[in-house]
């Protein structure tokens, strides 16, 4: 039963994992993007549609990332170049994403695709317990495994990472050193959108092989919450995403075992667990939030900011 829950955790949590890593990068640079849900939906639709048209799931994945990036581009423009409130803009883009994808996705509801299928890795998937849990998934899930250490390395061991984090902590210092924080933030938000779109694409091309309006069912919002839970650290964020997936899998396993727990409570459980995790974070003594998260950079060339 534990193995089933863990397998379900990875299966269900991968789409959230992509979105979480993307949002992490964006928030490290100082921009919070509540439109992640809209970006995920855009990615899911763009990916599904492209796979229908071209027959290639990899092209679909790429298109999915691009779709998410386009929604994020809108967010970046409004928030960075025009100084709009980040939370309001993000929410608006979430609804925009939901509406646009419902409208344009209408004719894809009954389409079938040859998407990604679970491909077991030859030797590793035979390992007794963890073989099935970790090594019997679709290619995009394996990409997500590789993504986590990649993001960690990029953020904490490279110059690019220092620049991104500086733009989120002390953007004046970054500006003084000659870089443009606005440009860095644009890049981070676009990268975040690309990853969120990829997460949505994983849901539609790899996991369900379908498109239905609002199919992400709140995963994007959960992703934003999980970034805070993870104290903006990539590995913890991955654990959070898998925790959410585990809660979803647990809900199903509990039902199958026949335990007398009300299904209504179980539907609530994944989101409840996310909330509890957030509350637990609040009791930390020192907040690790990037200091400039949510602030608008108004430094003008040559001025004192």
């Amino acid at each position, binding site marked *: 039963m534990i193995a*089933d829950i863990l397998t379900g955790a990875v*299966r269900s949590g991968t789409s959230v994992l992509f979105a979480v890593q993307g949002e992490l990068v964006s928030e490290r640079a100082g921009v919070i993007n509540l439109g992640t849900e809209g970006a995920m939906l855009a990615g899911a639709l763009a990916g599904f549609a492209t796979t229908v048209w071209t027959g290639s799931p990899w092209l679909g994945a790429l298109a999915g990332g691009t779709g998410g990036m386009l929604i994020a581009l809108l967010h970046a423009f409004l928030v960075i170049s025009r100084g709009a409130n980040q939370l309001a803009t993000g929410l608006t883009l979430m609804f925009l994403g939901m509406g646009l994808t419902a409208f344009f996705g209408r004719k894809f509801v009954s389409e079938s695709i040859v998407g990604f299928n679970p491909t077991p890795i030859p030797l590793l998937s035979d390992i007794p317990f963890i073989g099935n849990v970790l090594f019997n998934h679709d290619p995009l899930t394996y990409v997500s495994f590789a993504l986590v250490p990649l993001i960690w390395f990029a953020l904490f061991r490279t110059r690019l990472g220092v620049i991104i984090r500086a733009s989120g902590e002390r953007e004046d210092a970054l500006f003084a050193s000659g870089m443009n924080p606005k440009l860095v933030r644009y890049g981070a938000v676009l990268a975040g959108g690309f990853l969120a779109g990829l997460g949505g694409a994983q849901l539609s091309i790899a996991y369900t092989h379908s498109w239905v309006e609002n199919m992400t069912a709140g995963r994007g919002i959960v992703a934003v919450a999980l970034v805070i839970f993870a104290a903006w650290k990539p590995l913890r964020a991955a654990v959070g995403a898998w925790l959410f997936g585990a809660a979803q*899998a647990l809900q199903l396993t509990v039902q199958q075992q026949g335990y007398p727990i009300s*299904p209504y409570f179980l539907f609530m459980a994944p989101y409840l667990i996310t909330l509890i995790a957030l509350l637990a974070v609040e009791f930390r003594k020192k907040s690790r939030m990037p200091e400039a998260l949510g602030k608008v950079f108004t430094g003008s060339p040559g001025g004192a900011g």
Partner: protein
Amino acid sequence: MTKAKRWVFAALAMTFLLSFLLSACSQQGSGSTSGSGSSGGGTSGGDSADSGGSSGEASSGAVGTGGSAVGFIFVGARDDYGYNQAAYIGSQAVEEAFPDLKVLRVENVPETAEAERVMEQMINDGANIIFPTSYGHLDPALNVAARHPDVAFFHQGGLKTAENLGTYFGTIWEPVYLAGVAAGKMTKTNKLGYIVSVPIPQVLLNVNAFQRGAQSVNPDVTTTVVFTGSWCDPGQQANAANSLIDGGVDVLTQHQDCTKTVIETAERRGAMSVGYHADASSLAPEGWIVGSVWNWPDLFVNMTKTALEGRFDGSMYDGKYRGTLADGTVMLTDFGKNVPDDVKALVGEMKQAIIDGALHPFAGPVKKQDGEVVFAEGVIPTIDELESMDWFVEGVIGTIPK
């Protein structure tokens, strides 16, 4: 804050308040008295457009007559390989049978007051016959029906009726029972899986029928029920399907609006599938066993004809109409290619027995999960008793909230 800004804020606040009050008031219905057709209700304010046929006075036309259109509202997409597709096919039959009648359709109508607005708009556009096709459209439809006594409403699956609103449904549990028989015969692991949304009586009835059918040919079989909480959430459906198959289930079926994800996932993982609502056998060429579907076209055409000819009141459709396997309202699809002939023959025999009245899926003794007898030996429950079911039969693994 400067004085000017204060005024601007006050003006804005007043505007918001007023618009909220206005929209709330107009939602109550503009209290149209008998005879005046277009009340222009809802939040769109009174359309001054001439509403054509719907301004027929109640005194002259019988319920449902005099309109130039017939309206259908669906809760989802028409090509969901499921519930809404079945209803859509019915609406197409009406379109063909009545070429002079305009067919208005709106998909993705939520089960809220929004449905009222859509129905009012259709009445404004000349529809005197409305088909609200989703269970949750009942209350909005009852509200609209109260305001338009001259419009005939045919609601799918509801348990409340009105003067001008009749509900229709089918004894879908009969083909589901037969599908259970086929599944019970074909399963190798003796574990069947049922993916459903929420524990409402219609859902529980289907699960119980499926299990009873399977158990009648295979006493060791069990049906594991998983609730997803939604009528169409592909992510959850995929989760549930994978989870059930991991747990040893080899036949999957579902009571969901959209069936594509479950059927395709079962096919990909080598499990067999049983369909519901609509024929999805093209999605599962190897694993499809059989499916239970609605045959709405004939029924819809008959109902529309009855209404148009002014015979709605007193017809069999102005109350709770339940079509059966015998009259063809509910059907079994064709069998999949891997179903052996003896299974097909057995199901065929039992189907004829149901049609002849010799076999009833819920004839006593029927025991609940805990062993308590709910229908004694020899008792045949009424349709009302069946449609208010709130328990699982023995052999079903699952929990219903109290």
